[in-house]
């Protein structure tokens, strides 16, 4: 249906794709995987008309094509769902769903009744019921993703490209998504599926293509490829090594007898948090468990001063920190690695060096003048220690892969010598290899005496990585797992059976 042969694409300093062959067939779900920076995103953009290849040929429906814009590709029947929801938050659900394809009456004016009906039907067809007249931003991320999906399939798509569609979905939503994908396959649509979650690939995909460093290293039926082999192909290392790496888990046994370095007490934010208390000791990794929207991110933000609290106290090493102020929190030694790298963390237009030095600048300058040599030393140290893959300290961060961007952010905060590190989804959207590295790094940092608060939707990561897990639900703490109780089973149980904190959900006291 859609294929490329011998496609190459070069960006300044990086050869993103070199002589790539790839074929998506009708009625087949094709997994496209690889580490960050392997060239998946670039390949997708070539397929969907965002980039034009430097060399090679794109063939669609048997004839060579050259899409000038995403619009041309869409008209030809190629739809894409991107990793980050790419819709217009201020517009209503229906307008987003039907932008450019609005039903019109005889005068050429938009027929809103028909538009709302069409949008509603399209969403119901996917098992989603929302008020399509509401602005999109009022929906949760998962629901927004489903709107994007509905948009992609509601055009007469013959090829649907999904770039990590599940990264912000609840398990329940993932099941809905898979049902939709199966329907698409039955309808004879070619699906290209990009994901880092191996379980998903094996569940839903028929064939797999593995990219590494811009080249195809394997393509074939996914059933014929066992997981270990798949991982080793992605990483480009021998199986023995991978097994070793794969088992490099956090030790999960940090000292717990000392005074907490961070004590957050009774943090309350209207509608979001209801008396959340968390304590982290030096050298301890405390996990925050719970479903999407349970208040994990909000807790981290409240502690870091990025979210104004209505009441509650944050104490670092015995000193109370003024809440609602990021500078105060940073001075006290709290560093937050935010969930959304793109919007809240990296400055893509600035270099690796500038991004790392940014937060530490005040401490690195004398009489208002920046000590360049010291910055160079610090940047060098962290680039080596965190194994940041970049052309050099002066490459723009926007050009790096997700995993490396994350490492740059981590370096930025480590340069501040924090006492407490808050990590919100530190491994989301980064590949297996980088993930293991980041996990190992977290463990090392805790060993060095740092208090770490870890948020992760990956329950395995959370369980393996944390000494204790504080479980949140509806903005309140419902359980704390310690010692032997830190298991996936207990976590699920805590989330599932905890009495629904209806007081928190209802917008209580006032």
């Amino acid at each position: 249906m859609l294929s490329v042969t011998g496609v190459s694409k070069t960006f300044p300093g990086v050869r993103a794709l070199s002589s790539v062959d790839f074929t998506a067939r009708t009625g087949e779900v094709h997994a496209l995987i690889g580490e960050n920076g392997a060239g998946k995103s670039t390949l997708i953009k070539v397929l969907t008309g965002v980039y034009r290849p430097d060399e090679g040929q794109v063939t669609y429906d048997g004839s060579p094509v050259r899409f000038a814009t995403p619009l041309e590709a869409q008209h030809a029947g190629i739809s894409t769902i991107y990793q980050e929801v790419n819709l217009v938050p201020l517009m209503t659900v229906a307008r987003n769903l039907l932008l450019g394809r609005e039903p019109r009456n005889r005068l050429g004016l938009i027929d809103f009744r028909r538009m709302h009906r069409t949008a509603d039907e399209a969403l119901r067809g996917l098992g989603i019921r929302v008020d399509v007249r509401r602005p999109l931003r009022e929906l949760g991320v998962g629901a927004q993703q489903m709107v994007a999906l509905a948009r992609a399939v509601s055009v007469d798509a013959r090829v649907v490209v999904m770039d990590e569609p599940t990264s912000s979905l609840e398990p329940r939503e993932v099941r809905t998504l898979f049902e939709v994908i199966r329907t698409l396959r039955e309808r004879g649509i070619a699906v290209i599926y990009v994901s880092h979650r191996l379980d998903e690939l094996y569940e839903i995909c028929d064939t797999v293509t593995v990219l590494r460093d811009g080249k195809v290293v394997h393509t074939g039926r996914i059933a014929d490829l066992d997981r270990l082999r798949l991982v080793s192909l992605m990483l480009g290392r021998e199986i023995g090594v991978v097994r070793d790496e794969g088992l490099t888990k956090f030790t999960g046994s940090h000292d717990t007898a000392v005074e907490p370095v961070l004590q957050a007490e009774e943090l309350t934010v209207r509608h979001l948090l209801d008396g959340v208390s968390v304590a982290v000791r030096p050298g301890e990794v405390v996990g925050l468990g719970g479903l999407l929207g349970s208040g994990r991110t909000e807790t981290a933000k409240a502690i870091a001063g990025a979210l104004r609290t209505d009441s509650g106290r944050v104490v670092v090493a015995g000193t109370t920190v003024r809440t609602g102020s990021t500078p105060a929190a940073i001075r006290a030694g709290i560093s937050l690695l935010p969930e959304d790298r793109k919007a809240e963390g990296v400055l893509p237009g600035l270099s690796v060096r500038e991004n790392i030095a940014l937060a530490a600048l005040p401490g690195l300058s004398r009489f208002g003048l920046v000590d360049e040599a010291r910055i160079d030393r610090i940047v060098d140290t962290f680039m080596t220690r965190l194994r940041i893959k970049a052309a050099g300290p002066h490459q723009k961060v926007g050009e790096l892969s997700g995993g490396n961007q994350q490492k740059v952010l981590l370096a930025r905060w480590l340069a501040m010598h924090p006492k407490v590190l808050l990590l919100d989804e530190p491994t989301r959207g980064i590949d297996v290899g980088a993930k293991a590295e980041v996990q190992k790094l977290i463990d090392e940092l805790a060993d060095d005496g740092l208090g770490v608060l870890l948020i992760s939707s990956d329950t395995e990561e959370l369980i393996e990585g944390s000494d204790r897990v504080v479980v949140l639900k509806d903005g309140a703490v419902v359980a704390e797992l310690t010692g032997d109780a830190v298991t996936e089973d207990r976590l699920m149980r805590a989330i599932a059976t905890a009495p629904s904190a209806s007081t928190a959900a209802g917008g209580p006291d006032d």
Partner: protein
Amino acid sequence: MTADVESPVHTVSTPEEEALGAGRSERLSALAQQHGALVTLVVAVIAASLSFDTFLTGDNLENMALSSAFLAVVALGMTFVIVTGGIDLSVGSLFALGGVLAAWGSRYGTVVALLLPLAVCGLIGLVNGLLIARSRLAPFIVTLASMLGARGILLSLTDEGSTTYLVDKDSFFATLGQSTVLGIGAPVWITVALFVLGAVVLRRTRFGQYVYAVGGNEDAAALMGAPVARTKISVYTLSGLCAGFAGALNAAWLVSGVTILGTGMELDAISAVVIGGTLLTGGFGFLSGSLVGVLLLKVIQNVINQIGSLDSAYQQVVSGAFLAVVVIAQTWLGRRRRVL
């Protein structure tokens, strides 16, 4: 999973979303943002008519309506531009240029008097749009350049401003500016008609949807297949056309092409649009608000004129302070709604 049972409607809603419920306070903020200007206008009118006997007289109202009409037409085009997240500083100069061109052209008949300013100002708007959309230059700089350029063209046409072209008082073109229908000046009717037309275009056409989409999230709009460049070019052209037409209409009313007009008018237009609830960051706004914004500015101006003891220079201080208050209120409301 009690929470799910409680609200089976939102199949994919998160607990966080459920905690927010219908977001009543958010809805209230939205309402305030949409109708705040209108409420303020009503209050201002009531206060003014109670304070000054001369406020609610036919003459005074007609004067206000007429002087609002020209600014309103400029604000109409500006609304489209600001909803795309852009800005157009050239409209004041284009307004003046349009007036001079119309007055000069009126000797060749009404058609020339109307088409000439539309053609020239539309063309300048088109060039603005091309530079902004195709060459990806900042709207601020591009329209600042054409603001200066258009003023220059105007000066060369009028011998450094010393020549004022007059419109024949008996021509149809002059009638267009001066006649009244049902006691209300023709420019007011034309303005109202343009706003109705504009509102239909913005709310009910595909082009209008693209305008919102481009302002709301340009990258997403492009990925969704919206013609981003064409939309931008269109709004700047439209803004140029509106400014030129407003100038022509003004010339017909004054029966001459006054060269000193339009200075600072771009800022009045921007103020009116923002006061009317349109987000300066783009993606949200509506024409009725801009119209209310224009009226509000004119009412304030009128009230200050009525207070004989107050220097008319204070008018700008009050307008400025008022704008600041509006922007603060908007930002606050926007944050409540988590828009900004």
